[in-house]
């Protein structure tokens, strides 16, 4: 398969400022040397705890934040090196769906205006074809023609999220960054939106970067999954491989936290000890070692790099065999 997006050694540190003169006293290592690929027509799931840098990765790809170093190659072009006007051409190709459908729509704009905004800005269609396209988009996400003159507050959360999806689609994007698109919705509506996303992918061949913390949702929708911990990518594998044979103790702990709908299911959940370390001052060596069951001296000193343990499966752990295959 063809690569659509290649993220190489992406770094973003947010400075922590203190005092009257705003002296920089440290930095939050939100994204620290992250590397992964997204193929055309694929859904890449990105999971991890809150604050591990998933959202930052998404926003870096969208150029909402400027990366400190590293490359973001979109169809071979490095987005981080583009000037503002050059970037403009790529804006329409990468879109975003946010977590909160209440915050992501301009309350003062009618749905029709919201959906036409991008088409007008990028002159994707001649003026007389904009309105038919807007109605087509509404139909695509299962809303009515009459909704075009309504304001966002007149819709429910699920409907609003579908408007957000329609807005993203209005650009005919190649990649959509879905930043926890269903976590704010209740379960029945979650399924609606997820199925919509899947159908659209089959129809239009869009790639998704699907950021989430719910493992069940990620398993349902993703082709491949990357696991992040404290700004680092710790494991990447195909979905089935990851859920059947994970190679990182952290992934194992995450997977064991997925509830099983069976009262007789024997629980062998791995409880992680301790708190998530402070990303301003992450642990030495392997960042997971203070909470890892298998940690030894090597883990405290030497930082593990991502290495291949099976076809399409990379893990950043010194001792993946302790988890892999068990």
């Amino acid at each position, binding site marked *: 398969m063809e690569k659509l997006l290649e993220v190489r050694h992406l770094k973003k540190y947010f400075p922590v400022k203190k005092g009257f003169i705003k002296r920089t006293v440290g930095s939050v290592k939100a994204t620290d040397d992250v590397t992964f690929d997204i193929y055309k027509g694929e859904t890449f799931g990105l999971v991890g705890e809150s604050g591990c840098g998933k959202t930052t990765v998404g926003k870096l790809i969208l150029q909402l934040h400027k990366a400190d170093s590293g490359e973001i190659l979109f169809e071979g072009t490095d987005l981080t090196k583009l000037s503002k006007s050059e970037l403009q051409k790529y*804006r329409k190709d990468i879109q*975003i769906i*946010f977590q909160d459908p209440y*915050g992501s729509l301009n309350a003062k*704009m009618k749905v029709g205006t919201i959906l036409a*905004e991008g088409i007008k*800005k990028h002159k994707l269609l001649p003026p007389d074809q904009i309105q038919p396209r807007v109605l087509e988009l509404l139909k695509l996400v299962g809303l009515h023609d009459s909704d075009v003159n309504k304001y966002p507050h007149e819709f429910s959360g699920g409907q609003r999220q579908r408007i957000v999806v329609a807005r993203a689609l209005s650009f005919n994007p190649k990649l959509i960054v879905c930043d926890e698109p269903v976590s704010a919705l209740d379960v029945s509506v979650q399924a609606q939106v997820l199925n919509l996303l899947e159908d659209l992918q089959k129809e239009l061949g869009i790639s998704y970067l699907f950021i989430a913390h719910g493992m069940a949702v990620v398993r349902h929708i993703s082709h491949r999954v990357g696991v992040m911990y404290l700004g680092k990518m710790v494991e990447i594998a195909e979905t089935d491989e990851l859920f059947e044979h994970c190679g990182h103790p952290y992934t194992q702990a995450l997977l064991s936290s997925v509830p099983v709908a069976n009262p007789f299911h024997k629980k062998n959940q791995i409880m992680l000890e301790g708190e998530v370390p402070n990303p301003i001052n992450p642990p030495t060596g392997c960042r997971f070692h203070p909470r890892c069951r298998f940690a030894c001296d090597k883990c405290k000193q030497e930082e593990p790099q991502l290495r291949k343990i099976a076809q399409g499966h990379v893990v950043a752990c010194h001792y993946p065999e302790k988890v892999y295959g068990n």
Partner: protein
Amino acid sequence: MDIFKKLKKRKTAFISLIILGILVFLALVGNTILGIDPFETNSKIRLLAPGMGHILGTDNLGRDVLARVIYGIRISLAISLVSVAFALIVGTAIGTISGYVGGKVDSVLVLIIEAVCAFPTVLLGLLLATVLGSGMTNIMLAIGISNVPYFARLARSMAISIRGREYIESAVTTGLNHFEIITRYVLPNMSSVIIVQTSLSAASALITESTLSFMGVGVQPPAASLGVLLRDGYDYISKASWLSIFPGIAILLTVIALNFLGDGLRDALDVKIRVDN
């Protein structure tokens, strides 16, 4: 006119709007229609009590009080509206830029805003009157400048909260430039708060104008604002109380109407609030 319909349902606000409409109408053409002249003196009818002929009485120079109150409303409203319009445009622009851009620009602008805010309006009025001389333009400027910080602070805090919203990020990913984002996303979302502030500021500007004129640094005779009329009537308060009572009532009515209108507008402009009753 959706907003007008909603406003109609808020009784106090709607009545206030009608009162303001009448006041503005009177101020513009009242004296012409009634055929009375606020400047015509007549020593034979000095300090005439309200009654037939001169409905609100006459003052110490025999001028018709009704004509003078109507004229005073015109001057006072004009000063208050012009100065608030000035504050609205300058203050909102400064505040929006300050909040939207952030960083050093924000720090500097906030410092300026706070510095202006540290001057009491009356003191600023006195200062400008001393430096530039008293008169209508200067009093407008003084009230305008002293109202800038209110709009600037409000716009700044709104811009900061709006800037962090996700729809701004989606506007960025849409490829809109800063000007488009400010005019199409930031300003519309703060408009209702700003409009309410405009109405409330107009009320307080009217009071400030009256205060300054009462102190003698505002509008100079023969022009007369409501504050000047109060000042003139003050000398005769025990003999001819109607000289101060009627301008006072005019101030009261205008200020209350502006305040109620502000409240009503806030509800009417909020698309999320349905006005039922």
